[in-house]
Every structure is written in structure tokens, then in C-alpha cells.
């Protein structure tokens, strides 16, 4: 029987979003929607976890403080641009 063809994945020019790592995506999202201030996030896990917890509570997601798949899916979902926190 013929072997299934391995799908070839290409990088499409101008398709920026695929370049972000999950952590970069999270940092950008948390800043854009008011959960963190500019440069507030530092490398220590605590601050990211704290910010994630605020987001998870705000969006009624399981409050794990982790960048889990549910939280990542929420971050990738289409949404309104008005920040969730702050003015």
C-alpha cells in the first residue's frame, strides 16, 4: 500500500505570528490587555505566574498560574481590543 506522504510544512512570508514562542506570546498578551505594566515581567517565574493567575481569574479559566494549554488557547482566541484591566 502506498505510504502516506509526509506533509511538507513551509514558512509563509509575512506570517509573523508563527514566530512567537508561547512565553513571548504570553508576555505580549499580558501587557497588551493590562495585566502587566511595561517591563514589569522579569525572568522570575513568580511574576509571570502572578500575572497569569490574575488573567485566569478575570477570564474565568482554571487558576493554575501556569501557561497551560487552556490559557494559551484563550490567548490565541479572537477577542476585543479593550484591555481587561486598568483604564
Amino acid at each position, binding site marked *: 500500500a502506498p505510504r502516506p506522504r509526509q506533509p*511538507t*510544512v513551509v514558512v509563509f512570508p509575512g506570517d509573523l505570528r*508563527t514566530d512567537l514562542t508561547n512565553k513571548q506570546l504570553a508576555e505580549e498578551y499580558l501587557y*497588551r*490587555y493590562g495585566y502587566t505594566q511595561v517591563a514589569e515581567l522579569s525572568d522570575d517565574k513568580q511574576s509571570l505566574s502572578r500575572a497569569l493567575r490574575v488573567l485566569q481569574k478575570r477570564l474565568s479559566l482554571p487558576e493554575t498560574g501556569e501557561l497551560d494549554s487552556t490559557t494559551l488557547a484563550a490567548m490565541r482566541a479572537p477577542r*476585543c481590543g*479593550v484591555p481587561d484591566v486598568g483604564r
Partner: protein
Amino acid sequence: FQTFEGDLKWHHQNLTYWIQNYSEDLPRNVIDDAFARAFAVWSAVTPLTFTRVYGVEADIIIQFGVREHGDGYPFDGKDGLLAHAFPPGQGIQGDAHFDDEELWSLGKGVVVPTFFGNADGAPCHFPFTFEGRNYSACTTDGRSDGQLWCSTTADYDTDRRFGFCPSERLYTEHGNSDGKPCVFPFTFEGRSYSACTTDGRSDGYRWCATTANYDQDKLYGFCPTRVDTTVTGGNSAGELCVFPFVFLGQEYSTCTRDGRTDGRLWCATTSNFDSDKKWGFCPDQGYSLFLVAAHEFGHALGLDHTSVPEALMYPMYSYTEKPPLHEDDVKGIQHLYGGPRPKPEPRPPTTTPETQPTAPPTVCATVRPSEGPTAGPTGPPSPGPTNAPTAGPTGAPTAGPTDSPTRAPTAGPSVAPTESLDPADNVCNVDIFDAIAEIGNYLHLFKDGRYWRFSEAQGRLVQGPFLIRDKWPALPSKLDSVFEEPQSKKIFFFSGRQVWVYTGATVLGPRRLDKLGFGPEVAQVTGALPRGGGKVLLFSRQNFWRFDAKSQMVDPKSASRVDRTFPGVPTNMHDVFLYRDKAYFCQDRYYWRMNLQNGINQVEEVNYVTYDLLQCP
């Protein structure tokens, strides 16, 4: 629910909104309706009312934009951030912006209106089956004339319901060809084109010639948007898929997910992705403009995001066909504005007033009036005149296709969705007016026995057409010029070598121009500029005279040349009038506006009478 800090809210209940521009994704009437329904979601549970107006004075200004669109909060391309809005207040506060790199729909795929056929203009149904094959876009399959068509039900083979899709082979929009379809190939700057092009334009609008030679005939039109094959995102947003296209050496004649891991459909916008690398995402279900608008209008009324996932004010988009308001939303909005007003008792219909204009007073306003400066064609492709406009589309194309996908269809345009008003009533269809004058704070525009009027105080809502003879029975239908003398309120009407003077309902005339002191060489009065104190400048082509409204005589010695006193205006004007203290000199479809206040007679603006004075689309 949450409100904004300090319970920001509107302090009046009769709110107004202005749709400043349009996305090309949906027919305009569908966009108008989606916004109206989105406002109705909130007016149903509050005392608020929402009235559509056409100007920046609106409380809520609605705009489509991409990336950075002027408010410092840039959009982010397709998906992700869909729209945003500002809390109640002045200026940008209360406004709602929509990302035009999204595909706006009603949540269930592209909305493609159809013309002719036998489906009463119903939109296409995608996907549909034809001869057992599945189609998710309009097709020419089954036809020999190359016309694009679609089924308006899921199964053409059984239901046989179809219509023709917007296509440059069926009609063109705007331009100067009265909606005639494109002619392919056509020649432009010596090159041959067999498809629409944006060449020669900087605004990215696709256009074509409606004869074989644009260089010679200068006849053109804009190609209708083909939302079913227009790509979003990628690096060719707004362009069309090209089928077939080559990808990794293989030929594709439909959109594909190959090459991607996210499962999204894409296509190439040239015939060879491998060499050109031009691509974009194929239309998907899109986002419901109604649902997103209802959410954004919640912000514009003072609601912030909620944590209730099922509520309309939850930040994430999710499609639903149910009424979108959740009790959390109702509690929130009623916390700000209270509940709805008690419904008035039903009353018998009132009889309409006697003197009704022959068309509803907002004729211009309901025909795509708000394509403001940020959208809309800007004229023919260079090197032609860069600003030659036309009066806009004139309705359904006249020649329809003549056969059906497999056999002859019904001849059109039996069922085309056409505008309900007589085009002749549409002030936007008038190329050149006989006379224009400010009478009692209304700018009156006269043409062939009828006139329209509007006033700034009423937001430039055009009223009319009215019949001249109903108000000024002694007048002929053809006028050369009109002016109202500000002190006496007398209105002077000129036609040929005759003049009529109305004081209220009483009329003096017709009298011959020589009664006013004009010589026999003056064949007509083409304009008037009241200068106060009963002094008026009366124009006849290249010359003008000083006229004393009290003695109703011109000073023969005051004859002067126009170009010497008003440099920069054309000499063969067909009308001159004063409007809000500015002098307007009209030639063809244009006006030259001059500010006479500062004593320096300098042209400060040159524009179109219909587009800029009347704000036609």
C-alpha cells in the same frame, strides 16, 4: 458585570451614530443593518435611542481601519484583536473601530449578493453542489459566457436556484461608464490587460476599461469586490486567489491547507507560489459584524469586560445565533441607564401632511452617503485627469447574462435588487445644476423645474426634490441663477433675458434684463454675490456689474472682468453664488471657493459639487 472607572456614561438618551466608512467584505446595506441591529440589542433593554446621522457631530463614530488607524491603538492584522471602542464622552470617546483585516461576515461565511437569475437577489450559499461537485466560491463552470454564478441553496442540482455574482464581467462601479462591464483585453499606456488592475492608481482600487482602449477612450469603471476569493492576511491582503496555482510543484485549483500546521485554508495570489511567494488566507466563516458590534457598542455605552463567559461583554469572540444579551449584560447596562421606557399605547396612523416632497427627505443620506474621505474611488487611473468623478452607480446593469449554468436562464433584470427611488430624484445623479443659491439658511439646488435643499443646521440632510412651480409658480423650469437679497429677503430669479422678483408669495415679473440697466449684449445672468447693504455683484460669463437691490438697477459703468477681480476662477462659469459667506464659482461639476472676507480674493478650495458640497458617495 463591570463598568468603567467612575461609571462613565452618556448623560442624554437620544444617542446618534455615524458610519464613517465601510468594509468591502459585506454589501453596504448588510453593514448598515448589522450596526442598526447591534444598537437595537441595547435600546431594547434601556431608555436609550440610537439615530443615524452623517457627520462628526455624532456621539458614536464607527470606523473600519487597519493597523495604526489614528488612535494610537493599532490593530494586529487578521484574527487576534478584532475591534475596540472607547467609553462614553466627547471626541473619540464613545467611538467604535473595527479591524478591516478581519473577514467581516454574519458569522457563517462570506455574504455574496447575487444579481438576476431566479433567486430574487438572495446571497450565495456556500458550499453548494453542482453536478455533484462542491463549490465554496462563485464559478463559471457550466457556462460558456464566462459569467460567475452561484447557487443560493446548498444543492443546485435539485433546487435549481441561482444568481450571478458581483463581477467585472457583469458590471463596474463608479468611474465614468454608467456601470458597463469591463472589456478584456484593454489597452492602458500601451500595455494589454486581460484582468482588472490597480496599475496607475495609488489607492489600490482595482479598475478596468469599459472599451478596448483606455488610452484613447478614457472610459473606466471599478471592479466589484469578489469577497468569495479575496484573501485576508498573508502578504497579499485584498488580492484575489489565482487558480490554478503551483505550490511545491503541484497544481492547486482550490484553496488548500497543505504546507501549514494550523489547518487554515490559503491560496496563492499569483499562478506560482514557489517562485512568487505571494499568498493569503482564503475566506473562512469570518466574524459576525453584528455580534462584535453589539459588544463594542456595550463599551461605547459604558460597560467594561465581564468574567461571565456566556455574556456578550466577555472579551472573547464566540459565534451564536441566539439573542446575544445575557442577564449579566442587562444588569450592567440597566445599572447605568435603567430599564426601557414603557411602550406607548398603539395609536391610529396619522395622515400624511399635504405638501410632501416627491421623495423622502433623506434621499442622499440613504444611498451610501458616508464614504468619507477615507474610502471611495478617487478618480481614473493616471495619466488621465486624476480627479474626474462620475455620479456613481446608476443601478442594476442593463445587460444581463443570457443563459444558465446548463441552459438558458431567465432574462434579467427581472429580479435584480434595485433602489426603490427614481434615479432622477436622486440629487447625487445630477451632474450640473441650473442654479444654486442660499435662501433662508438653506442651500437650494435647482435643476429642470425641481430643486433640492439642505441646511447645515439639519446635518446637511438633503430634502427634495420639490417642484419649483409649487413654490414659485411664475417661474420657468430652466433657471440661470438665483439670489436672495439678505436685507429685503427678495429673491431674484434669472432665466435668459428675463428676471422675476419674489417677495414672499408675490412676484414682480417677468421683466426684461434691460429693465435692470443691462445692455443688449448681456444674454443671461449666470450668478450673483450679495455684498450687504443692498449691493449685489451680478455675473454674466466673464463680466460682472454692481447691482443696487433697492433701485434694482445695475451701474453700467461698473462692468468689470471676473478674472481681474477674482483671479484663479474659471472664466466660463455657469453659476456663481454665495454660501455661508464664501463665494462659489461653478464650472462643469466643480466649484472654486473663495473667501471674500479677508479682502484677498484667493481661491481656497476646488472640489466637486456633488461629492463635497452634497457629500454624495
